[in-house]
């Protein structure tokens, strides 16, 4: 089964963990939970706004992890956050707290491999998979190293740009996924700009799954309920399942 990983900004609403349940029920294979940061430099307007809203509502790493721990989930949960929040607690304590809350994966978009040593070690010690990102501009040598050092899967950023909805999946993303799959047996997930079920279906031909972020978060910002979002995710699931690969 192709991976389907919805992204959700932690603390976006008081009942935010209900989205986790709905995503789980509607075909998510894992969920990426954003620990909101004040300065998300790889995020476009939608996720920036979501982070802002969650922070203004009082969300913090501690409150979000506590709520995650209280929500018994069966699929893997992956934290996504910026490196300052890791540095603030220290990689060691940060990873221990993730593990204690039942989170088994971690993505830090502003931490390239050259600087990732300390966090990679701490993550490994606590049984957290530090997943690394690859971009369309990454050179072949470096791509191989990212593929080798990434844990869990490889996060392929499809576009040169920030998170946000797009009309189609970028050619650069298709190319990157192809290159990565030649380099490694680890799952390659395509992220950024997967906005409609058709995109997911198209991506399924070149990668092992997709991350859907801004398209879901925009609906949540517009007031979409957990049930409604679960139904939207279900549409992505069906599209992925409809392609025979």
């Amino acid at each position, binding site marked *: 089964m192709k991976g389907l990983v919805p992204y959700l900004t932690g603390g976006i609403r008081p009942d935010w963990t209900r989205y986790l349940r709905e995503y789980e029920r509607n075909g998510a294979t894992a969920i990426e939970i954003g620990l909101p*940061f*004040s*300065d*998300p*430099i*790889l995020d*476009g307007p939608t996720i*920036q706004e979501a982070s*802002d809203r969650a*922070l203004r509502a009082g969300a*913090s*790493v*501690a409150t979000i992890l506590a709520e995650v721990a209280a929500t018994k989930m069966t699929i893997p949960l992956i934290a996504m956050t*910026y*490196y*300052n*929040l890791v*540095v*603030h*607690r220290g990689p060691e304590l940060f990873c221990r707290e993730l593990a204690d809350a039942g989170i088994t994966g971690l993505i830090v*978009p*502003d*931490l*390239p491999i*050259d*600087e990732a040593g300390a966090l990679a070690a701490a993550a490994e010690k606590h049984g957290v998979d530090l997943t*690394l*990102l*690859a*971009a*369309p*501009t*990454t*050179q072949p040598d*470096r791509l191989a190293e*990212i593929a080798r050092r990434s844990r869990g899967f490889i996060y392929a*950023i499809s576009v*040169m*740009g*920030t998170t946000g909805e797009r009309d189609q999946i970028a050619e650069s993303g298709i190319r990157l996924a192809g290159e990565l799959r030649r380099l490694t047996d680890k799952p390659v997930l395509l992220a950024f700009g997967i906005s409609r079920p058709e995109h997911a279906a198209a991506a399924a031909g070149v990668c092992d799954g997709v991350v859907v972020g801004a398209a879901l978060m925009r609906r949540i910002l517009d007031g979409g309920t957990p049930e409604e979002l679960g139904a939207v995710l279900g549409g992505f699931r069906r599209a992925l399942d409809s392609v025979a690969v």
Partner: protein
Amino acid sequence: MSDLVLPAERVMAEPGELGRFGEHGGRFVPESLVPACARLEEGFREAWSDPSFHRDLERLLTVYAGRPTALTPAWRLSAELGITVLLKREDLAHTGSHKINNVLGQALLARRMGKTRLLAETGAGQHGVATATAGALLGLGVTVYMGEKDIERQALNVFRMKMLGAEVVPVTSGSRTLKDATSEAMRAWVTCLDEAHYCLGSVMGPHPYPWMVREFQRVIGDEARRQSAAELSTGIPDYVVACVGGGSNAAGTFAGFADTGARLIGVEAAGGAAVASGRTGVLHGFRSYLLQDENGQVSEAHSIAPGLDYPGVGPEHAYLNDIGRARYVTVSDEEVVPAVHRLARTEGILPALESAHAIAWVIRAAESGELPPFSTVLVTLSGRGDKDVATLMEAPAPTGAPAPTGAPVPTGAPVPTGAPAPMEAPALKEAPALKEEQ
């Protein structure tokens, strides 16, 4: 600790491939930007070792930017304070601040690397104006990201940028100041790496920016070193003082004196004092001291000087602080406004609010006795205050400010009434011509 003088080759040196200054610096950017940073580093290393690049840059700095800038003794302020104050006059550089030095360097580099556009962030607008200027000069398109709040308070500079042909993009996220403009410029950069160079305005950001910008600003310190050798009987000033936002004018100034016994003082705004009140963090591609709340969220900085309204500080400053080579102090908004007025009245120089932080500290330190009598103090005047006039019109007039007319010298100062230049300052080698006119 503050007496520690490390060998010249270790202080303010080349930060190596990882761009480290002790535990600070580095390159904490999204993977998409890593190749661009690496190529820029390569391009800078190559240009910086090429005599023809230096020749081009020096020529522009001379015939266009107006370098070398003067080193002006602040005669009357010196007499009032009982010390010798020398002002390194970056306010006299084209576009009115030190920002032009860095921008001409980066713009030349960008052109050399085949870029057709410059992106920049700006707070006070000085860096934006400098970038717009260099873009016009070298035929490069310019887009400047600026927080909405700064657009309001720096209307004059916004108008200047537009006249120079730059596009000014308002940034509405977060605190709507320099921090958010920087984030937005980095987001934009990812989308146009092939044709655009991100012209960062201070000694911050991912490697190689902190190092490269310091090298482009080194001209301030190198000139000041030569000029103070000519001006002072002691050759080297006892103190070298500069304001610190990101820290580029301070880094450039300090670079000229890092291997001397001069005490280096960086002056931060009390509401944006990353060294004094921050803790280690990572923002905008580098590790340094950063203002943040108890949850690790970046705090908003507050300063009357928009150029100091940044929650972080360049990584090399964090390092200079850690090893005790430089000392970082703070000045409040309330001390800055009187310092502007005082320099205007004593020397006929209206400093930028940013620069006035350095002046305010010198005044405070001299008056409190922290600066021993007869000390020699070099202060970098990073820019002129024209851009701040609207803010100053609204700021409460300093208590005890001299009346607009009447005695030109505050009472109590050891200066003959009406004298343009009391030559009390013993450390100066030779009296300027003004003396004969007395």
